[in-house]
């Protein structure tokens, strides 16, 4: 089957190690966190130079199983892994995201009457050496 170049649904979402699987995952968001700094001087009326001096990578998970998030202490650090499946389950079409040094920051849970309960987990990440981005991509 040819690859569609489309992804759908998440699998094997794990934190803080390669063993602990988070379940009922409905949405995963990774942000590289680039922060553009603009420079202007002299007669500039519009910034004439832009540079990313710092990046602040983040991730967010949403799940129908909020209790698992509420059970994680803020500050827990580990590796966050998530596999974005190929839309047609083609071999070699999955993308595996690995966020190293992910720090569990916050959890929210909510459950309106008559609706599914839901939870949100927020992560920040740091670099081991200060220059290598903690978010990597590979084929799953």
């Amino acid at each position, binding site marked *: 089957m040819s690859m569609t170049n489309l992804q759908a649904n998440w699998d094997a979402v794990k934190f803080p190690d390669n063993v602990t699987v988070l379940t009922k995952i409905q949405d995963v968001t990774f942000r590289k966190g680039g922060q553009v700094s603009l420079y202007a001087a002299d007669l500039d009326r519009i910034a004439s130079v832009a540079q990313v001096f710092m990046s602040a990578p983040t991730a967010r998970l949403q799940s129908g199983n909020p209790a698992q998030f509420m059970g994680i202490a803020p500050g827990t650090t580990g590796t966050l892994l998530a596999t974005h499946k190929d839309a047609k389950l083609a071999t070699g079409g999955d993308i595996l995201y690995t966020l190293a040094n992910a720090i569990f920051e916050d959890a929210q849970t909510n459950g309106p009457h008559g609706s599914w309960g839901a939870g949100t987990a927020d992560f920040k990440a740091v670099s081991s050496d200060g220059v*290598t981005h903690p978010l990597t*991509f*590979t084929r799953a």
Partner: protein
Amino acid sequence: MGAAARPDAVLIPSSYKRGSNSRQKIHSILDVADEVLRTDKAAGERTYYRNTEFRAADGSHYNLATRGPLCTMLHPTGHPREKTPRYRWEDGEGGMRLGYLLEPEYIIGQS
């Protein structure tokens, strides 16, 4: 590339990216990285890459590809030689830079 020792890391200019969407671009970098790093998929190895802020001679950003997701450009914080280079870099083909670990026994994220 011949029979020379296989690199532990490669810096690939973003100009190597092909395709119109992010997935095609990810695959195009991984295709190059797999070949250069000679990643042994049959043995379960994978190539991981991440963006960097370092720029190649053509002005595009380098992407750092390694055989482990936790590999770093420099020795990590807490290492006796933290923030010093982990690799010896050599020029490769097409603007790529080939990295060889200075301490082969110290490979982060490879199991």
